């Protein structure tokens, strides 16, 4: 009887193994079939990205340009929400199943090192395949692991201080008063605006660490030191940023918002006078056509610390090619031709979408010196490309979001005064250390 049972189990096992191996064979055959003819540039590449108004629209433009010269290449662009995209990528990479993965994927800069180090061998090494010296230094640094460069840099999140010139003039401030100011001055202006116009200065998420990262990067410091060790409790730049957060809240110059929609609604609806964030917000600001001519952009305020500059960064992302991609060569060629070679393309996406690429040769293009009527004729993009070059280069490391979470779990106590900033940062550091097990 036992023999029979064993027999049945063996049969079942063989069956299931046959089924498994069959599955894994399929991609292998088609892979070799495709790589035999890369010279002709044909095949299909799939691209994952988020934001239909920005990344997807820009990719569609790139697709049209590439297909003009390579009509045999089929390009499928899949629009997936950012959170879902990250989740899908994690599960696929962790399971080792490559079938469901795209050929090219968009990854946010804060997450780049995390993916590269967590899934070694999953992303194609593009060192010497793409001319990385044409891109901004800080972007290339974020995609380098052990001397190898793994991606093609895309947009920068160079930050600016967008403001409603009509509200600020009413409060008695001209454009030249807003150049290279500190956050203390910003708060003073905010108070004046509130007094004279009744409007709040900023739409502000009390649990949103975005602005804190803007403040931090302008000082060249981060939550971690260069070696990747946690640096919260004794980080003067961070403490200054936390103090600025508290001062901004205490001054009563904010309209509290929760989430993207409320935040955008605050400035689109004319409730707030300013936005300090990455250049990618331009599209959302311009979406409210009735405010055309009322907006202007000044350099990002800085913390009152030695070494702090009036330029910073928030977000930005880059393109990565999957190592197991069936049409890896085509995918790399596509990125090379368009994102690392097509000057016109960058001019077009700048005008259409407000996308400021990190491709240096494009920044001498005509569109960068365009006067934008929405911003009262200001040459905003030439300003942004000037500030962009001053952004201090930082290694975000692996745990930016962990640090953000740890800090913002003590922030309610900082706002209420229950904890001093020193004590709060000590607590956050303790929390972060235990969480990531350092």
């Amino acid at each position, binding site marked *: 009887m036992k023999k029979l049972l064993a027999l049945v189990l063996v049969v079942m096992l063989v069956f299931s193994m046959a089924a498994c191996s069959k599955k894994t064979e399929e991609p292998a055959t088609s892979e070799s079939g495709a790589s035999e003819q890369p010279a002709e540039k044909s095949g299909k590449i799939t691209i994952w990205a988020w934001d239909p108004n920005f990344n997807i629209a820009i990719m569609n433009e790139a697709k049209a340009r590439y297909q003009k010269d390579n009509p045999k290449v089929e390009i499928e662009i899949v629009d997936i929400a950012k959170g879902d995209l990250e989740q899908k990528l994690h599960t696929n990479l962790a399971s080792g199943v490559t079938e469901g993965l795209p050929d090219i994927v968009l990854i946010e800069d804060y997450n780049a090192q995390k993916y590269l180090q967590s899934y070694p061998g999953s992303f194609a090494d593009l060192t010497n395949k793409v001319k990385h010296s044409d891109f901004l230094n800080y972007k290339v640094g974020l995609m380098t692991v052990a001397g190898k460069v793994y991606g093609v840099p895309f947009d920068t999140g160079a930050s600016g201080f967008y403001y409603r010139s009509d509200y600020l003039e009413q409060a008695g401030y001209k454009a030249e008063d807003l150049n290279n100011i500190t956050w203390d001055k910003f708060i003073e202006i905010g108070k004046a605006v509130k007094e004279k116009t009744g409007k709040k200065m900023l739409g502000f998420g009390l649990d949103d*660490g975005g602005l804190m990262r803007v403040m931090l990067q302008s000082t060249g410091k981060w939550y971690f030191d260069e070696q990747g060790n946690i640096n919260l409790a004794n980080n003067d730049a961070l403490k200054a940023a936390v103090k600025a957060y508290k001062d901004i809240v205490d001054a009563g110059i904010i309209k509290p918002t929760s989430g993207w929609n409320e935040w955008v609604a605050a400035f689109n609806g004319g409730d707030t006078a300013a936005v300090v964030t990455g250049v990618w917000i331009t599209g959302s600001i311009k979406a409210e056509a009735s405010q055309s001519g009322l907006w202007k952009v000044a350099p990002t305020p800085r913390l009152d610390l030695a070494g702090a500059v009036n330029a910073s960064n928030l977000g930005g992302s880059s393109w990565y090619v999957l190592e197991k991609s069936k049409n890896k060569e085509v995918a790399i060629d596509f990125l090379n031709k368009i994102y690392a070679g097509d000057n016109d393309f960058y001019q077009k996406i700048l005008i259409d979408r407000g996308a400021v690429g990190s491709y240096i040769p494009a920044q001498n293009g005509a569109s960068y010196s365009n006067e934008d009527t929405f911003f009262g004729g200001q040459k905003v993009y030439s300003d942004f490309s000037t500030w962009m070059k001053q952004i201090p280069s930082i290694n975000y490391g692996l745990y930016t979001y962990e640090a*953000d979470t740890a800090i913002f779990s003590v922030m309610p106590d900082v706002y209420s005064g229950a904890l001093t900033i020193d004590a709060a940062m000590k607590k956050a550091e303790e929390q972060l250390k235990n*969480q990531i097990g350092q």
Partner: protein
Amino acid sequence: MAGGTNKKSFINVQNRYGWFFVSIAIVLLGVFLLYPIFHSLYLSTTSSKGIVQKFVGITNYTRLFKDQMFLIALKNTFIFFIIQVPIMLLLGLVLASILNNKSVKFRGVFRTAIFLPAVTSLVAYTVLFKMMFGLDGFINTMLLNLHIIREPIPWLLDPFWAKVTVIIALTWRWTGYNMVFYLSGMQNIPDDLYEAAEIDGANKIQQFFYITIPMLKPIIVFTSIMSTIGTLQLFDEPMNLSQGGVTGSTTGPGNSLLTLSVYIYNLCFKFMPNFGYAATVSYVIVFIVAMLAIVQFKLAGDKK
């Protein structure tokens, strides 16, 4: 086997078929149930950066006690559990006994209306609640216009009020669901019990406490265990209500909405992907659910 009688070989044939039919189920069970359970147990003894895995033994479990973020998640989950479940079950019980009263008009309409939230999608209703409970949302506008409050309540912007919002949302979504269980239970309580009680002079409230509740005990135990499991696995509501930060990553103001399930998600997908540690946290949930279920059975005095 070879030298058996006819009868024996018949039994053998029967046994063979028996084993064959059972084996399919056993293999499926093994592959899809037992293997994941044991593999995740193994995973919980590793620490990983994506696919870079290393064996760490029970370090993950000792690490839990020092991990403030885990303790916050545990605390939040228990606050939801301890406050929300009794409110919801009591409300469900009261509504069920009102709607079980044959003299109430339009019972069918009320029953449907109260049960209806239970069929809505978790994400859809959460998004709706997020809009309604915004600073300029419907709830604040209404309360202001009725002069019940002077300042808008920072529903989703303050750690305390964020929890209140989740509790309100959960109660709205699940009360009707539990009420239906109670209603069907009450229909099985014989009317003569109430008649006898009335003759003995028991009023409605006494009837509720001395007849309805004892008769419903098995169902109350069932709903409380289901609600316990549900609350400990709470994910959709805090996740969607707190997609707060434009570029931030806390779950609700000051992590006030961080639950164990959300923490598992964060460990896998938002933070450095540490599937090993995430498996450890999920085993903690299993352990707590098992413990609470045992306690509830003991309290209910169920000897089975």
